[in-house]
C-alpha cells in the first residue's frame, strides 16, 4: 500500500516537474513584454468605452496613459478620485479639469414648434436629416426630436420629451458622443457651472423665427444690454459667455421676452418631468 502511494506520488511529481520545466523553458524562450500598469489603469477607467477621450476604447486609452504619457483627465467620465488613483499607479500627477456638461440649444418641442409636414420614415435624426425637408418641424435649425443623441449617450443622460432632447446634467459625463451625432449640430459641451442657457440655435431671419417656434431667440439683445460681460453674440447667435457665466438670478433680471434665455432647471422642468433612468452598461461581464 505504502509503495503504491509512494510510487504514484513519485510519478505524479516527476511528471509535474518535467512539464513544469517545459513550461518554464517555453515561457522564457517566447516571452512577450507587457506592462502590468496598463491593466491596472484599465481596471480603474470606467469601462464605458464611450470614446470621449479620442481613443478607440478604455483599453486603448489605458495603454496611451501608460506608454504615451497621455493625461488621464482626458477621460471625462472619470471622477476625480479615480484620476487620483490612476495617478498613483502611473506615478504622474493628474491634470485638473473643469466639469463640463452637454446642452441642447433648442426649446422647440413638438407642441412648441410649428409643424411643416407629416414625416413618415425612420425615426432617427440622422436618417431624417437626409430626407428633403428633414423631419416634421418647420425650423431648419432646431432639434429633430428623433433621439439619435439619446441612443448615442452611453450614460443615459439624454431624454426625449415631446420631441425635444433634454440633457440631465447630473448624469452627463461630457464624453461628447451626442455632439458628434447630432445632424443639426445643436449640442455643445459647456462648463457645468453655467446654469443659464439661450435655448435657440436658429439662424433664420428673426421675423420668421416667431412663426416657427414659441420660444425662439429673436436676437433682440435685451440680455446683452443688461450685462455685456455675461452675454455675447457668437456667429450670429446670442449665447451665454461661458468663460464668465451669469448667476441664476440673471433670468429674472433680464426677463427674456420669448423665454429662450432660461434656467437649465426650469427648461428641464417644462420639458422633462421625470428623469431618465441611467442605461445599464457592461452587459455580460463573465
Amino acid at each position, binding site marked *: 500500500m505504502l509503495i503504491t502511494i509512494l510510487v504514484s506520488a513519485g510519478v505524479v511529481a516527476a511528471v509535474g516537474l518535467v512539464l513544469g520545466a517545459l513550461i518554464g523553458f517555453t515561457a522564457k524562450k517566447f516571452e512577450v513584454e507587457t506592462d502590468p500598469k496598463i491593466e491596472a489603469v484599465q481596471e480603474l477607467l470606467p469601462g464605458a468605452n464611450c470614446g470621449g477621450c479620442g481613443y478607440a476604447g478604455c483599453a486603448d486609452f489605458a495603454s496611451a496613459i501608460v506608454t504615451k504619457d497621455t493625461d488621464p483627465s482626458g477621460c471625462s467620465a472619470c471622477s476625480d478620485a479615480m484620476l487620483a488613483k490612476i495617478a498613483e499607479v502611473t506615478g504622474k500627477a493628474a491634470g485638473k479639469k473643469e466639469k463640463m456638461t452637454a446642452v441642447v440649444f433648442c426649446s422647440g418641442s413638438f407642441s412648441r414648434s410649428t409643424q*411643416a409636414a407629416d414625416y413618415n420614415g425612420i425615426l*432617427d435624426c440622422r436618417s431624417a436629416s*437626409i*430626407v*428633403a*425637408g*428633414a423631419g416634421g418641424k418647420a425650423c*431648419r435649425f432646431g432639434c429633430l426630436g428623433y433621439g439619435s443623441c439619446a441612443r448615442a449617450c452611453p450614460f443615459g443622460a439624454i431624454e426625449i420629451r415631446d420631441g425635444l432632447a433634454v440633457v440631465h446634467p447630473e448624469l452627463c459625463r461630457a464624453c461628447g458622443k451626442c455632439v458628434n451625432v447630432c445632424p443639426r449640430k445643436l449640442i455643445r459641451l459647456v462648463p457645468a457651472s453655467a446654469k443659464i442657457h439661450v435655448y435657440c440655435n436658429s439662424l433664420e431671419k428673426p421675423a420668421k423665427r416667431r412663426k416657427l417656434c414659441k420660444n425662439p431667440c429673436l436676437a433682440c439683445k435685451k440680455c446683452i444690454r443688461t450685462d455685456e460681460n455675461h452675454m455675447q453674440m457668437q456667429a450670429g447667435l446670442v449665447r451665454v459667455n461661458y468663460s464668465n457665466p451669469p448667476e441664476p438670478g440673471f433670468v429674472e433680471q433680464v426677463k427674456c421676452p420669448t423665454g429662450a434665455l432660461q434656467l437649465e432647471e426650469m427648461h428641464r422642468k417644462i420639458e422633462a418631468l421625470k428623469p431618465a433612468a441611467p442605461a445599464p452598461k457592461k452587459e455580460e461581464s463573465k
Partner: protein
Amino acid sequence: MNIPVKTWRFHGGVHPADGKALSNSVPAQRAPLLERYTVALQQNIGAPPKPIVAKGDVVKKGQLIAEAGGFVSAPIHAPTSGTVGDTVEVPGANGGTIPAIEIIADGKDEWGSGLEPIPNWKNTDREILKKRIAEAGIVGMGGAAFPTHVKLSPPPEKGIDTLILNGAECEPYLTADHRLMLERTEAVLEGAAIAAKILRVDRIFLGIEENKPDAIAALREKAGAYGVTVVPLHVRYPQGGEKQLIYALTGRSVATGGLPMDVGCVVQNVGSCAAIRDAVVEGHPLIERYTTVTGTPVVNPGTWILRLGTTVEQALTFAGGVKERAAKVIMGGPMMGFAQTSLGVTITKNSSGILLLQWKETSGYTSNPCIRCGRCVRACPMKLLPGPVSVMVESENYDEAERNYVMDCMECGVCTYVCPAKRPLVQHFRRAKAEINAKRRAAKAKQA
C-alpha cells in the same frame, strides 16, 4: 429605320402601375406669362453659378443673369424680359434653401440672349458648338442636372463610339419626354445629330419604352434622316437608369464606380437634345422646359411648357388646382422624386414633373423587421442585397454595408417598392451613403 436591334435584359426591375394615361394624350400647353419669376441660382450639379445682375437692372428674355461658376457648372438666363428684383431664398427641391433672383416681367417678353443662331451647324467647328451649348446653360434634363457640355467633352482615350438618347421615361406618371418626343420630334433628332457631331460618333440609339407607340412611330418616321436608330425597350423600371439603358442597348455593363464613357457611351436625355437644337439653331438658351403636372388629385393633369422660375404653386394653378386632398407633392416621379413640404419650390432645369398623390396611393413606411423574403434581391437592378444591407445600416454597421456595395445603390427605389414589410430601405441606404461619404472625407482630410 425599322431594323430590329438586339437588346439585353437587365437584372431585376419592376413594373409599377404607370399612371401615364392621366396625361399622355394631353398636348403640352405653353404656360401664360407670369408677373414674376423666382429663378433659383443653383440648377446644376457642380459649382453654383455666380449672379452678374443687381436689383433694378433691366434684362431681356434669355439674357445671362448668372455666369458659370466653373467648368462643371451652367449659366442661368432670364426667363422673360423685365427688371431684376430682390434676391430671395427659395426651398430647394431636394431640401434646404437656395438663393434665387426675382425677375419682374414687363410683359413684352422680348428676346435678347446675345447668342447668334447657327443654322448651318453641319459646317461649324465642333468647339464652337460645344461652347454654344455651355453658354446656353444646358444640363441633363432627366433629373441629375449634370452640365451637358461636360458630358460632351470626354477624354479622347475613352474611345466614345455610341451616343444614347434616353427617351425611356421609365418613371410612372411622367409624360414630359413623351410629349416632347411626339411634338418636337425633329428638334430632338436634330439636337442628337449635333451632339453626335461633337462626339464624332455615328452610332446613335434612342431608347424608348414600348408604352409610347405614338412617339415611337413619329420618331421612326424621321429618325433615318438624322442617323438615329429608335430602339423600343421593355416597359420595366428603371429602364431609363443610365447603366441599365447602356446595358439594354449595347450589352456593355459599366463597372461599379465607373462612368458611361468607360464603356464608350454618352447618354443624353431627349429634353437636353431638344435644348441643344434650340441653342444652336435658334440661339435660344435654356429658359423653359416640358414639365408634367399630374396625379389623381389634379383637376387638369397634363404637360406644360414652364419657364424656369415658375413656382409649384403657380404650376398647379395652371393645372386647375386639386379636386381631392393631396397627401404628397413630389418634384419628379414617384420612384425617385422628392416629397415637398411647401409649394414655394421653383421649376428648375431638371424638374421633369410635379406629381400629387392621394394618401391611399402613397407608400406608408413602417419600422417592421425584414422578413427576408428576398424580393428586393430579385428586383434590385444593381444586383445588391437591399434587405440584409438595410439591417446592417439599422444596427449602424456601415463598414459591413460598404463591403456589401451599398455605395453602388442608385436609389432607384425598386427594393422599397416591392418590400412587403414596407421598410424604408432607400432611406437606410441614403443614410449609409451619407455616413460613408463623411467617413471618407474625414479620412481624406486626415491624409492631407
